[in-house]
Structure formats: C-alpha cells, structure tokens
C-alpha cells in the first residue's frame, strides 16, 4: 500500500525529468550560429562573384588580339582556373561542415532535416568543383545560374535560425 501511495509522485518526477530533457534537446536560437551562417554564405558568395567577374573578363578579352589583351586574358584564365581556386572549395567545405556540426548538435527532428539541407548545399558545391576541375573554367552564365539557388539554400538556413529567434517553429 505504501509503495502504491508513492508511485504517482515518482511518475510525476519522471514526467518532469523527461519533459526537462526534451526541452533541453529542442533547438534554440544561437547568435554565434546566426553569425556563422552569414559568414559561410558571404564567403561562398564572394568566391562565386569573383569567379563570375573573372569569367566575364575572359569573355570580354577572348576576341582581342593585341598583346596587352592577350596578356590580360592569360592572367584572367590563370586566376579563374581550378588550380587557383581549389582553396575556395576547400574553405567552403570546411566552413560548411563546421556550421553543420554546430546546427545539428541538438538531437531532434530538425537536426535530421537540416542534415538534408546541408547535404544538398554540399552536393551543389561539390558539383561545381567537379565541373571546374574537369573543364578548367566555368562560364559566367553557368556560375550566375548556380549562384542564385545556392544563395537560396543559405537563405533557408537563415530563415530557420530567424524562426528560432522569433520563437516560431523552425520548419
């Protein structure tokens, strides 16, 4: 009888503990993460814009035959080539992984969802890298067309964090 009398109290304690654990697992807004998303997006976008500018310069010089233009063309081609930009892809990969680890450290459903989003961003950057390394250069138009959806993917990460900040459900 005495045992039964205490059971509801223990149940209540367990329930409260369980709720506390669940609450501690729920994602919460993190200013460092917010800043990190912006930083990774800006670094990635700056790299893409730099490549677009170089590709446009190549387009504007390739039909010119004077020595100065030919020299400028060779210079732009070298700067736009894969070898000169492998660091950009490496940095983007490392920054993205660091951000993913931070954002998915909380073991809840949104972490799984974020993993999918990170995978698609990583796959897109890998695809660009592969194309770049195989073809040597990427055209300005293709880069511009790749830039928009990649930024859209980062925007989704930003919206996720902003939703946490405003107390809305993340997704």
């Amino acid at each position, binding site marked *: 009888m005495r045992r039964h009398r205490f059971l509801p109290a223990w149940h209540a304690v367990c329930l409260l503990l369980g709720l506390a654990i669940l609450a501690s697992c729920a994602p919460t807004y993190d200013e460092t993460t917010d800043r990190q998303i912006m930083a990774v997006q800006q670094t990635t976008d700056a790299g893409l814009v730099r490549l677009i500018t170089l590709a446009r310069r190549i387009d504007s010089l390739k039909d010119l035959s004077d020595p100065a233009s030919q020299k400028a063309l060779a210079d732009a081609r070298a700067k736009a080539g894969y070898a000169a930009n492998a660091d950009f892809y490496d940095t983007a990969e490392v920054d993205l992984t660091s951000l993913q680890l931070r954002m998915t450290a909380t073991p809840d*459903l*949104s972490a799984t*969802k*974020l993993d*999918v*989003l990170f*995978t*698609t*961003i990583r*796959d*897109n950057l890998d*695809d*660009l890298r592969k*194309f770049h390394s195989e*073809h040597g250069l*990427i*055209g300005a*138009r*293709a880069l*511009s*067309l*790749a830039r*928009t*959806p*990649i930024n*859209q*993917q980062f925007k*989704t990460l930003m919206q*996720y964090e902003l939703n946490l900040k405003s107390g809305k459900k993340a*997704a």
Partner: protein
Amino acid sequence: MAVDWTQVLAQAVQAAQGVLAGKWPVVRQAATAQITALIANAKAIEDAKDTMTEDEYELVKRIQKRALTGVLAGFEAIGIVAAEQAAEAAWDVVAGALRTATGLAFI
C-alpha cells in the same frame, strides 16, 4: 518558339503540388518562391541558348533541382523522396518549356 513563362510557372507549381498533395499548404509559400526563381533562371537559360553548352546546362539543372529538393525537405512534413519527386516534377515542366523556347536538342 515563344513561351508564356507565367503559364509555365503555374504549371510547374501545379506539378509540385500534385506530388506533395495534402502537404502542399505547409510548403506552398516557400515552394512557390523557389519555383518562381527556377522560372527566372529558365528565362536566363533561354537567353543564353547560343552559348550554353550541354555540360553547363546539366550542371545548372542539377544545382537547381537539388536546391528545390533541399528547401522542400527542410520542412518536417516532407520526406526526402517526396521532395525529390516534387522538384523533378517542377523541373520537367520547366525543361519542356525550355525545349520549346530554345530548340536545344540536349534539354
């Protein structure tokens, strides 16, 4: 041949909606914004039809579809397979319009 991109947008949205069915209301706003961006990029591909290579087109296509998949799958209600199918359905509509608009054999 000229393409009515406004109509293509409506058809692409409808195609994605058809795949996601009852879950559509949850993603409607984000998906419509993303598909609108897809249409804007399709118009840019149309403008670049004389210079864009098949490899470049394939690269851009993969990136566009993946971005849409990632955004859709980010919603709790949408699984990765459904997100991929919705992105594929929307892109099929866009690709059909692009074929008409550009006459490019590789699209």
